[in-house]
């Protein structure tokens, strides 16, 4: 029987093996086990996660094993690439995540749970259900896709979005080449190894569920003006320009002060005006004839109190998750079945995620030498998402729609900005409402089957075939709009689907023997991978009815409906995967890995790449001279070097020249029909036959320590990554035409940093124990080379500026903000005159103005190049969205049956481009809702210490016209990710209910955030979930904020 030293409670699922053999079993839920000892063996090795592994003499036939809790995780068995090792034997850089802590964050996504839980991993997400967060292992390695490789139960995949967090048994992050190079061509961005749970012991049923409420920010998160204040601001802007506002703005009457009208449609009408007689009202929201739009008579009352568009779009929303797991097993066979249902309503209206996941994991032994098993999960996911961080999205509209516009007109149809010069944003509620009948469903079968054969003593063959089959389907309807100034008059139905599969076939031989003081583990194998998929998308228009039961592709009447489809396929072949681990006397460890990988993306000449790595370790604490140092339980130094590869950004047809065509870019109405197009072709892919692997030459040194009677664990790593032959598709010169630029091995990058963690377990009294944990991740990134012809490139969107403001420049980190540096405002005319004179002098009269449009209350930019005046050349680096470091803090307390834990995540030193200010704090950036900053904290001669330039109806180079440091804000924050208080009833208290244990808990997630950032949420995911995301992040243009979550939960075990 295995019991805990702490309270004598039984320890289930402890691993029991006979030392030096493969014979083993595990304890059942009551801690009992039995096994037959092979002849000549007397020693058992008993281990369990969270306890110190011990060896006991079992020659007496019956043993009671008492395991001490180990705050040292060094004895855990860690699944690494293709093998497993004890943590104390690991010489590569591996972060082992505490799955129990991780699972406390209520979300459907493992990636979100990872945030702050592992040193070396940076996760930035959003509040949107199901949205893929940005996951970076040791920062940025390439200009394209920086997502890590996930290996779930031995199957490599790029996607774990639908994996059920409750199914995870362990999660390891392989960070350096020594750990990850075994994954060769896909290791560059780091590897996350996930192992799912298996059944053990007596049949048990567990239920884990929670229900909660997500609570959006209260108050006035965008700091918006009310309608009267907006009107005042409008008049102020024109008057500052010396213009009479009533000449240009008739909505607010003709008086000296703006007076809000009773109606905004008909624009400016007063109560009692004949035009607001409801009998005249006519709006047909489902009009099918564009010309009907002209006959609409809209009647919209002004919302004088102001519409709170933030809270019209952001509502408190419930979420719940229910998970049932049935599992059991003996030393021969095991099974686990789990079912998860998650229903998370988004806090932005009409967004949600409903997910159903089932998992079946089984293993059977055939005789003593053969084990077969499978791990399979099937997921159905219904998850409509919106695109945040864009001017034209639900959230972008909400921050721009003027508060005088109500949500609905007098008859309950949507109100909007039609006709009254109230800007061009769409009614966001209408936009969201129109997606209500859009449906989409994705499903995925993921898993593997395997067989293990013990060939001879110490030699095991493992053969596994796994992968995924997925499909997705969606349809949506684009309604005509009638409430806006800029209406879409057509109606369009979209439908599409995709499917695909990939498989990985892995065969390995592992040999593990101990010869005296020598411990040798050898692994060799091969792997093959194949992927394929297809998609089809179609649309039709001009529907007689918009009833969702009527609209199909064939009921539209458009003359040229469109269908497009595509397919892809590719393969990888790895003839050699090899690994050698050698230990001498449990002191000196050397480990080497080698992988030879081939990819169909490259020409035969460049198909194969080699990815070696070597690591060494020295367990100093095992040395004789350390025996006297009692406070050191374990001390290990590690160092490693190796090469990891990358090819994820390259497309299959990179090596081929293609022509292609589509209606928009290469079809032409050569016949002059006015209504039909003839097929034409253009250059598609521009080929490069010399493209080969990207190489990340990686070195790492680290130290692991366990101190003070195993109470303190400590790990620290320093790493350097030199990315050579970085695959990049530098833009072709315009003269080459607009074909797709090929990926070439041209760029170089350097990244280095520290990551580490420290944890402490202590007792205050026998009943009151605590755990403290802290981990830290840092990376510093520098671009060494971009291409042969240029030392920079811009990425992202220029938004509303004339120039892009995200630059990737040699000598700088990726994705840096770029523009004019604001020194302050021009506060006096004398100041402007003096600068102009100085400019004239410096240029011998060639340039007579220091800065274009220099004027009182406008930005004074820095003359960076010192030539006396402001030009294009004065643009400089004005902000870095890469954090100096991110960190996580875990605090745990247990008192008798109560448990309390809290987790904090922070990021430090990153900057955010707050593009929301562009819309809300500047007046001429489109008519729209403006902020209190614009009205009350903008520059005036009396208020020069202002947050915004002088209000004006015109946009200048020296105000809103160009990208400047005015938008850049400190993005550091510390967030309480969760606090949980739980109470556990053990079997003793539950009598004969059949319940073994029961825990109830209350939890608050995202409870508070400490930040100087002025926006709604400092956590800004990248704006696109595509492979360019690593080049365009940290720009806030209306984010899907992380809501507070209040949860009550229940864990029951039968």
């Amino acid at each position, binding site marked *: 029987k295995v019991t805990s030293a702490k309270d004598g409670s039984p320890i289930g699922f402890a691993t029991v093996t006979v030392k030096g053999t493969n014979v083993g079993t595990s304890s059942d839920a009551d801690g009992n086990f039995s096994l037959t000892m092979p002849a000549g063996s007397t020693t058992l090795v008993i281990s369990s996660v969270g306890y110190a592994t011990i060896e006991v003499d079992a020659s007496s036939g019956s043993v009671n094993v008492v395991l001490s809790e180990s705050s040292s995780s060094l004895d855990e068995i860690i699944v690494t690439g293709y093998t497993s090792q004890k943590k104390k034997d690991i010489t590569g850089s591996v972060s082992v995540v505490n799955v129990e802590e991780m699972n406390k964050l209520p979300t459907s996504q493992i990636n979100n749970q990872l945030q702050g839980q592992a040193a070396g991993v940076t996760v930035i997400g959003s509040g949107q259900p199901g949205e893929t967060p940005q996951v970076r292992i040791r920062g940025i390695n390439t200009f394209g896709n920086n997502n890590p490789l996930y290996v779930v139960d031995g199957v490599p995949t790029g996607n774990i979005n639908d994996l059920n967090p409750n199914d995870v048994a362990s999660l390891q992050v392989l960070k350096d080449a020594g750990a990850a190079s075994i994954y060769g061509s896909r290791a560059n961005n780091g590897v996350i190894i996930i192992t799912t749970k298996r059944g053990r012991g007596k049949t048990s049923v567990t239920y884990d569920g929670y229900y909660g409420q997500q609570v959006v920010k209260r108050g006035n998160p965008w700091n918006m003006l009310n309608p009267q204040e907006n009107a005042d601001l409008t008049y102020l802007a024109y008057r500052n*320009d010396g213009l009479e506002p009533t000449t240009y703005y008739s909505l607010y009457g003709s008086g000296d002060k703006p007076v809000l009208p009773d109606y905004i449609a008909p624009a400016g009408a007063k109560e009692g005006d004949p035009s607001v007689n409801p009998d005249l009202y006519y709006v047909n929201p489902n009009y099918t004839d564009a010309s009907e739009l002209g006959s609409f008579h809209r009647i919209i009352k002004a919302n004088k109190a102001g519409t709170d568009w933030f809270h019209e779009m952001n509502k408190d929303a419930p979420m719940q998750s229910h998970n049932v797991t049935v599992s059991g097993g003996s030393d021969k066979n095991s099974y686990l079945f789990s079912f998860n249902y998650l229903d998370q309503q988004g806090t932005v209206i009409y967004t949600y995620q409903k997910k159903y996941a089932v998992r079946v994991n089984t293993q059977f032994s055939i005789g003593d030498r053969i084990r077969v098993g499978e791990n399979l999960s099937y997921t159905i996911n219904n998850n409509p998402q919106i695109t945040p961080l864009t001017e034209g999205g639900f959230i972008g509209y909400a921050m721009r729609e003027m508060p005088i516009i109500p949500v609905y007109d007098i008859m309950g149809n949507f109100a909007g900005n039609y006709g009254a010069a109230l800007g061009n944003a769409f009614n966001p509620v209408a936009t969201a409402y129109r997606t209500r009948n859009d449906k989409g469903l994705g499903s995925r079968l993921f898993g593997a089957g395997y067989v293990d054969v013990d060939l001879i003593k110490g030699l095991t063959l493992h053969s596994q075939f796994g992968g995924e089959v997925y499909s997705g389907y969606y349809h949506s309807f684009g309604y005509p709009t009638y409430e806006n100034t800029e209406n879409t008059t057509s109606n369009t139905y979209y439908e599409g689907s995709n499917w695909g599969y990939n498989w990985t076939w892995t065969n390995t031989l592992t040999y593990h023997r101990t010869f005296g003081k020598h411990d040798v583990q050898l692994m060799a194998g091969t792997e093959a991978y194949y992927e394929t998929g297809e998609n089809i998308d179609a649309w039709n228009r001009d529907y007689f009815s918009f009833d969702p039961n009527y609209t199909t592709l064939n009921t539209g009447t458009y003359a040229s409906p469109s269908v497009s489809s595509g397919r892809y396929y590719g393969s990888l072949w790895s003839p050699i995967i090899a690994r050698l681990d050698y230990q001498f006397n449990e002191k000196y460890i050397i480990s080497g890995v080698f992988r030879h990988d081939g990819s169909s993306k490259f020409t035969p000449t460049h198909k194969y790449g080699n990815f070696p790595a070597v690591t060494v370790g020295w367990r100093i604490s095992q040395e004789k001279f350390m025996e006297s140092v009692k406070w050191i339980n374990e001390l290990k130094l590690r160092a490693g070097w190796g090469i990891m590869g990358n090819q994820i950004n390259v497309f299959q047809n990179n090596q081929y020249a293609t022509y292609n065509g589509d209606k928009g870019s290469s079809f032409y*109405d050569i016949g002059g029909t006015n209504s039909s197009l003839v097929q034409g072709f253009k250059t598609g892919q521009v080929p490069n036959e010399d493209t080969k692997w990207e190489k990340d030459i990686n070195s790492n040194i680290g130290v692991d320590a366990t101190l003070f009677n195993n109470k303190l664990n400590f790990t620290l790593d320093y790493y350097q990554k030199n990315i050579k032959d970085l695959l990049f598709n530098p833009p072709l010169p315009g003269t080459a035409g607009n074909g797709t630029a090929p990926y070439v091995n041209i760029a170089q990058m350097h990244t280095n940093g520290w990551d580490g963690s420290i944890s402490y377990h202590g007792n205050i009294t026998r009943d009151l124990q605590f755990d403290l944990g802290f981990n830290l991740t840092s990376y510093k990134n520098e671009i060494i080379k971009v291409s042969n012809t240029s030392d920079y490139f811009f990425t992202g969107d220029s938004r509303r500026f004339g120039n892009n403001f995200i630059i990737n420049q040699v000598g700088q980190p990726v994705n840096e903000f770029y523009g004019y540096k604001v020194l302050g405002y021009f506060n006096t005319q004398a100041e402007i005159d003096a600068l102009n004179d100085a400019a004239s002098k410096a240029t011998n009269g060639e340039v007579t103005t220091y800065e274009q449009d220099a004027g009182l209350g406008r930005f004074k930019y820095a003359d960076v190049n010192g030539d006396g005046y402001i030009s294009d050349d004065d643009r400089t680096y004005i902000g870095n969205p890469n954090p100096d470091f991110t960190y996580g803090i875990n605090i745990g307390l247990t008192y008798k049956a109560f448990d309390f834990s809290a987790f904090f995540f922070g990021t430090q030193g990153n900057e955010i481009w707050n593009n929301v200010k562009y819309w809300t704090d500047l007046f001429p950036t*489109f008519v729209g809702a403006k902020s209190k900053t614009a009205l009350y904290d903008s520059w005036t001669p009396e208020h020069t210490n202002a947050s915004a330039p002088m209000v004006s109806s015109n946009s200048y180079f020296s105000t809103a016209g160009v990208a400047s440091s005015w938008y850049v804000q400190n993005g550091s924050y510390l967030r309480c990710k969760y606090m949980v208080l739980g109470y556990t009833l053990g079997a003793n208290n539950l009598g004969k209910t059949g319940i073994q244990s029961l825990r109830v808990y209350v939890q608050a997630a995202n409870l508070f955030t400490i930040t100087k950032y002025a926006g709604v949420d400092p956590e800004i995911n990248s704006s696109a979930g595509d492979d360019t995301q690593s080049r365009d992040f940290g720009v806030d243009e209306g984010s899907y904020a992380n809501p507070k979550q209040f949860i009550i939960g229940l864990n029951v075990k039968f």
Partner: protein
Amino acid sequence: DVLASPSGINALLIGAYAALDGQNVGNGTPWGSSVSNWIWGSVMGTDASKGSYAGDQQGMNEIFNYQSSTSNSFFEDKWKADYEGISRCNNVLKVLPQITTMSTADTTNIAAQAKFLRAHYYFDLKKMFNMVPWIDETTTDYNQPNNTDVWPNIEADFSYAYDNLPETQSEAGRANKWAAGAYLGKAYLYQGKYADAKTIFDNIIANGKTSLGVKYDLFTNFEDNWRPEDEATSPEAVFPVEMTANAGSFDNANYGDMLNFPYGNSPFGCCGFYQPRQDLVNSYRTDANGLPYLDTYNDHAVKSDMGIGSGQPFTPDAGNLDPRLDWTAGRRGLPFNDWGIHPGADWIRDQAYAGPYANKKNIYWQVTPQFHDGSSWAPGSAINYLVIRFSDVLLMAAECHAQTDDLAGAQALVNKVRNRAANKSGWLYKYKDDSDPTGGFSTTPAANYVISPYPAGYFSNKDIALKAIYFERKLELAMEGHRFFDLVRWGIAESTINAFLTYQKPFSADIATASKFVAPKNNYFPIPQNEIDITTVNGEKTLTQNPGY
């Protein structure tokens, strides 16, 4: 090569035509690369304001304020779109020799069309940027310097097309011999080779016909040029860019000009760009004899509704006007096609910023909804853009006659254009019923139109003749993307634009802080900075920036 077949080569050629509209070919904004050159030719040439609102398309602001930095991305929009067009022409010429199953006539026809299109794209680059690198079907290294004038290459391609294209083609959109001739003449004209140009233009005027065989002539009515229903039978469309509505892709529906419709509660919705300037509107003032005020038109300003709300009363100008004004600029109080009376401020996004007028030449008609494409947030239409129309040919010919001292001949050509404008059937009339704009027009002219041809002997010397011809081009071709390039080739861009700024600045917020136009710098736009940077080889720049930038 799968495209080395008659149908394959034709598809490549269609691809080369498809780049004409500038849409979805260079990855830039639709506006910078629009074939209509509304920014480059017309906004820069003082025809129009950018329009709309200060904060909208801010990147254009510094350009039309003559303050642009070289990194402004609008320049590269144009550059990339034209070179993509060139690349598609080169694809045709590269693959063509591999085809052995086609008749010599067909092969020559295809090669000549490809060269015609290539020369068109280079012409566009030439007038925008002056010094540009030459890339043809033999080029393999695309880092080519811009140190050689491409006029000889453009002439060579157009000459080949003029010598080898058939007079008629099977399809309306294909260029024929006469289109090539007109463009070759234009290339000569831009270089001041007036005698060469004159020979060609005279031949075209005498013998030219459209690809469908319609003899070149002026449409009876000026406005017919912007009516898709008349495009097939147009005698005036020398080189049209074919547009479509509702053909499954908005890119082919004048995407590059989608912003250029009245705003507010207009039936178009968006976006209030491209508003004719007061200076342009004043140009249509005529004297008692129906002739323009060549120098003093701004002293006879047309009354505008600037600063007058739509709810306040306004009576339109009652003075003498050239009737082409009201097919060029939408004015308050007059019929706006069949969409109703233009209400003034209600259809204008920001009068203080960009004035009270609306663009009119790209406005589709309510009675022909099939030519309107409503599939995007702003309108599209099937109205073709005419790169060269016959009245342009007449006026270019007039210039050549004047330059070669045939003043009477020049005046006759100008008067041919004016006579068409004077034809009453082509004037704008008041609606029969203002509340029923699709119910047809009355017989009462919408304004006081007074226009006459120049009286005999008016072109008494070369200076007067040229001044009148230049002014006629302004009136006839306004808002069609030509004016800036005309001003530059005439050598009067600096004086004309600075005079315009002096007049217009005080009441146009969009140019309130504009810089002076400085020649020769501002005669050409800067080589896009990014193109210079990405063609820098071993630290040596391949491209040389234009002087002054």
